[in-house]
């Protein structure tokens, strides 16, 4: 996802002089091409994320489209008040990018586990929140958010996720992508859990359970119609996210379902409990620990149905 983001950003910046990149002294090995090619539109603000965010707002208030970039929680909750007041209240055209959503930096410990970011960004007025599911969605999302003025949070996974979608898929902010059809239940995934959702659906299929899979790449605005269709047509929704079960995709879907006038179906939220991980480990290890491996998702959904 990281490479897809930077390649797309380079392409966009080559055609749009408004685009600036402000980083918080992170991005070794990935920010250099932008810095070399657009030195007057690149700024390393140092290890100072509050200032990075305020500076980005100031640039945006002078007509720039500004990407801020850091890892984990540094570009979001470290500088939350600057995001709320300086960016959101001024409707500044700043795109906040974080790489390492969820447990991507699992071995680095709890400081680097980004598990509350989507909830916190989602509650901010005027903020668009995007967590793409594969490199294709990253590329499309990066293009789309530049075309839409105003604040945005773009949560990336790590490097090297597989591409899920074919090029013919249409990407639109706020419109979920139905990746697999099914009638028995719908797995709605956020961010990089898309691959897990598809694999779990394949395992369910082998067990005779026909699961639909939806990539909910945009958490805000949320594609409520797709959620209501899932409730009405499949009768059961499971949300799948590498994030706290509080405030993220599961909560967002629950809010829609709870207020639905038509059929609500059943809802199960799969994610990370609101607790600090008691152990460190690879992303794969920590996902499995919280029941987010394809096999664990398959087992829990099979027994739930």
């Amino acid at each position, binding site marked *: 996802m990281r490479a897809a983001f930077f390649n797309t950003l380079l392409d966009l910046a080559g055609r749009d002089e408004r685009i600036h990149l402000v980083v918080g002294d992170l991005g070794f090995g990935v920010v250099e091409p932008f810095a070399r090619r657009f030195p007057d*539109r690149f700024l390393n603000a140092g290890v*100072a994320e509050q*200032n990075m965010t*305020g500076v980005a707002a*100031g640039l945006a208030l*002078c007509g*720039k489209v500004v990407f801020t970039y850091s890892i984990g929680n540094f570009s979001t909750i470290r500088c939350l008040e*600057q995001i709320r*007041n300086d960016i959101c209240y001024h409707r500044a055209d700043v795109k906040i990018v974080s790489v390492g959503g969820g447990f991507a930096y699992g071995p680095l410990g709890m400081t680097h586990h980004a598990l509350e970011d989507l909830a916190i960004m989602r509650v901010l007025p005027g903020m668009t929140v995007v967590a793409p599911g594969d490199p294709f969605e990253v590329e499309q999302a990066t293009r789309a958010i530049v075309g839409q003025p105003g604040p945005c949070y773009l949560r990336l996974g790590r490097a090297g996720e597989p591409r899920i979608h074919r090029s013919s898929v249409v990407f639109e902010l706020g419109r979920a992508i139905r990746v697999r059809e099914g009638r028995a239940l719908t797995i709605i995934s956020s961010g990089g859990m898309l691959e897990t959702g598809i694999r779990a659906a394949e395992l369910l299929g082998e067990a005779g359970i026909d699961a639909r899979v939806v990539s909910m790449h945009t958490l805000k605005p949320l594609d409520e119609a797709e959620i209501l269709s899932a409730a009405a047509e499949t009768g059961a929704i499971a949300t799948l996210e590498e994030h706290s079960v509080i405030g993220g995709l599961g909560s967002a879907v629950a809010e829609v379902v709870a207020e639905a006038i038509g059929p609500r179906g059943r809802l199960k939220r799969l994610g990370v409990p609101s607790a600090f991980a008691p152990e460190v480990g690879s992303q794969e290890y920590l996902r499995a620990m919280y029941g987010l491996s394809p096999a664990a998702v398959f087992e829990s959904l099979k027994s739930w149905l």
Partner: protein
Amino acid sequence: MTQGLDTKATRALARTVRRHVVQMTHRAKASHVGTSLSMAELLAVLYGGILRVDPSTRESLDRDRFVLSKGHGCAGLYAVLAERGFFPPSRLGEFYQDGTRMAGHVTHGGIPGVEVSTGALGHGLSIACGMALAGRRDRRPFRVFALLSDGECDEGATWEAALLAGHHRLDTLVAIIDYNKIQSLGTVKEVLDLEPLAQKWKAFGWEAREIDGHDIAEIHRALSEIPLAPGRPTCVVAHTVKGKGVSFMENDLLWHYRAPDATELARALAELDAEP
């Protein structure tokens, strides 16, 4: 007389700002009268001739930007903007009132002339840095002035911005510190001493000058010489008196919170009118 300075008119503007401020805070039963009074001369000099912006150029890409980082001093800013014709002075009656947009911390929405909304301290200098960077990249001639309180120099973000501005030699950026020596729960010296303040800014790569923040000629001289040193951002440490101009409000922490009642308002206006 300093060149280009109409001392009499500027003094009159500062006095008018103070009159508005005590009236606004009285009507609204609002806090923060002292902080608006301490910066009246700074605002009068800025809007009386230093800032290259007026109601007709407030959307111009080349206008000077003014960022009131000490957003709680908004009564003073609203007042000077009204006096300079950005909106009618009658709108000052909206301050704090139900259904209006004139918030008790400076707010840009619906208030012509306000560049940036602040209120949480330590935000303004970062935004000002971004504006100065944009001006440099676009080769536009504007300067960016940020007015900070002494209290917000406690905020780490202020010093993050100071570090960046010095490093990037943002010499179109000016930070003015309204150093009135009183913050929320006591004097600056008691709460978190900032001294030596000017030296701190110098150590961060700025050119700093200490001035009497109520001496119109001295303010004008400093702000007419931007940058004070080529290649360096400018910091003007303006020594001021909290509550300046109203004897019973001066140097008294109470007036960070208390709004003048009718009797106090009358006394305050009488004192301001009696000023030479």
